[in-house]
């Protein structure tokens, strides 16, 4: 039996920075040597947003970037947990990780197309940055224009960026799925020569189900209770088969051909 590359000792990180990036998102920067040294792209860290038992369970966040003992996260304010995290400007923070399987090594002979919605960009940017990928394309969809800062960070990891905004304030006006269809039509993206990595809201993933199932990977973000394989809470339905995968240890990345969205 092979054990996953995870680390089960909670680490007390120190919040270094917590910056509002607009559009309901913020950047959380935490010093946490043990995790930063180990983490690989695609893995996540499970954060106890505050002391006590409310919220009770940790919140998993993909690592956006890791270097020199420091972790960066890109987080959207959604509910109880993220709202509290948003308010935490300094202090200790209890983190468990890295968790989950890292993304696979990128192939050297194929275009890597990453498609992200919202904070789904986080693990994909880390992936692009971590590996030296000969040709990559980054496609990002959001409601409105990314902040200058976020955009400049994207430019650091990729030369080929396409953006869609629902309000048309930046790039293509419309949904990211429409932008992807457009890019395929204009041959900017050639599905047969690419592999795809998707991460984002469920609706976005579903709208991209037309991509080649064998060549498309999806990073899933379902609700998790434990994050390391013992609760069976993070079930993702297998495609054309009985049973479920556990997102946390068998994922979070899956081939589209293997799972039902």
């Amino acid at each position: 039996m092979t054990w996953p590359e995870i680390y089960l000792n909670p680490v007390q990180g120190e919040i270094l920075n917590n910056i509002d990036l607009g559009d309901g998102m913020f950047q959380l920067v935490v010093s946490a040597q043990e995790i930063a040294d180990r983490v690989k792209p695609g893995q996540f860290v499970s954060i106890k947003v505050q002391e006590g038992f409310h919220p009770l369970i940790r919140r998993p966040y993909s690592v956006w970037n890791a270097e020199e003992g420091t972790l960066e996260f890109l987080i959207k304010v959604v509910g109880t947990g993220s709202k509290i995290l948003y308010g935490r400007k300094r202090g200790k923070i209890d983190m468990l990780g890295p968790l989950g399987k890292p993304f696979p090594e990128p192939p050297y002979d194929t275009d890597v197309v990453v498609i992200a919605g919202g904070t789904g960009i986080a693990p994909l940017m880390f992936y692009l940055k971590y590996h030296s990928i000969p040709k990559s394309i980054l496609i990002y969809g959001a409601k409105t224009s990314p902040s200058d800062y976020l955009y400049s960070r994207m430019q650091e990891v990729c030369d080929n960026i396409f953006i869609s905004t629902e309000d048309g304030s930046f790039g293509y006006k419309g949904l990211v799925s429409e932008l992807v269809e457009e890019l395929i039509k204009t041959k900017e993206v050639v599905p047969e020569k690419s592999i795809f990595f998707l991460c984002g809201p469920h609706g976005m993933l579903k709208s991209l189900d037309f991509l080649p199932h064998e060549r498309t990977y999806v990073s899933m973000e379902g609700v998790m209770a434990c994050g390391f394989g013992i609760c069976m809470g993070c079930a993702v339905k297998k495609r054309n088969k009985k049973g479920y995968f556990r997102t946390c240890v068998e994922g979070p990345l899956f081939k589209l051909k293997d799972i039902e969205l």
Partner: protein
Amino acid sequence: MNLEVDLAGLRLKNPFMVASGTFAYGIELGIHLPVEKFGAIVTKGISVNEREGNPPERIAETPCGLLNSIGLENVGLKRFLKGKWSKLKTIGIPVIVNIFGEKEEDFEVLAEELEKAGVDALEINLSCPNVKKGGMQFGQNSKIAGRIVEIVKKKFKSGPVFVKLAPNFVNIIDVAKECEKKGADGLTLINTLMGMAIDVENKRFKIPSGVAGLSGPAIHPVALYIVYKVYQEVKIPIIGVGGIYDYASALEFLMVGAKAVQIGTMLFVNPQIILEIIDKTKEYMRRKNISDINQIIGCMQIRKYRR
């Protein structure tokens, strides 16, 4: 300093074990956690046939609690014995196999096969739906509960049989007494409380099946009181479970009479919690000059109830 307890004949090097369904089959964490330091392992529930479990969402959070509806997903008896049990038995601590069925005969088969395999002990989960009774849980009727105990006890001889109960829509004391009468070697109290949560924004149950099981620190005071009360009514040992979150909340159960405890939900938040509880308990005993953990057990019960 002695942390060892005798639990209906099982010798546990300490009274702290995992709760069923919250540590998978017990072998998943392997190199990541020194499981052999636990008092015992309780496996996730095993049924005769494989079950794929419920569709998501299987989990919803409530204030200091967790609702789950995993749907008793498991590989089934055959694959359990082949793949899991063979590894489990090499860990070197007692393994309690949690079992459940849809009908009485299921329990018979499970008891028989697990006896053959020589497992250390069984824990019968009676909070599972009885398909012949329209999904009513076995544990919600003391007669039915007692019958299951009889069936299992007849077939399983290699170790103690514990019965795990929940207090939902039933007087749990009645059920506990009936189980004792029918030969149960111990009781595990409590299984999850039935609960529910609704996403009012989208007018849907947070867990599609509607009802789910509530666990976690929220239920600790309730579980503790149930153990306190049932202890006064039965002679067989009790395993306390429900919302344990640190050494003190674990010792509370021992103080009202539990011989051992199980930790569930909080393992998800802190996988190291059992090791921490063991360490902190030792520290407590040192501080309080307690040489044997058995001195703590039942110390909050008035004498007339002591067994």
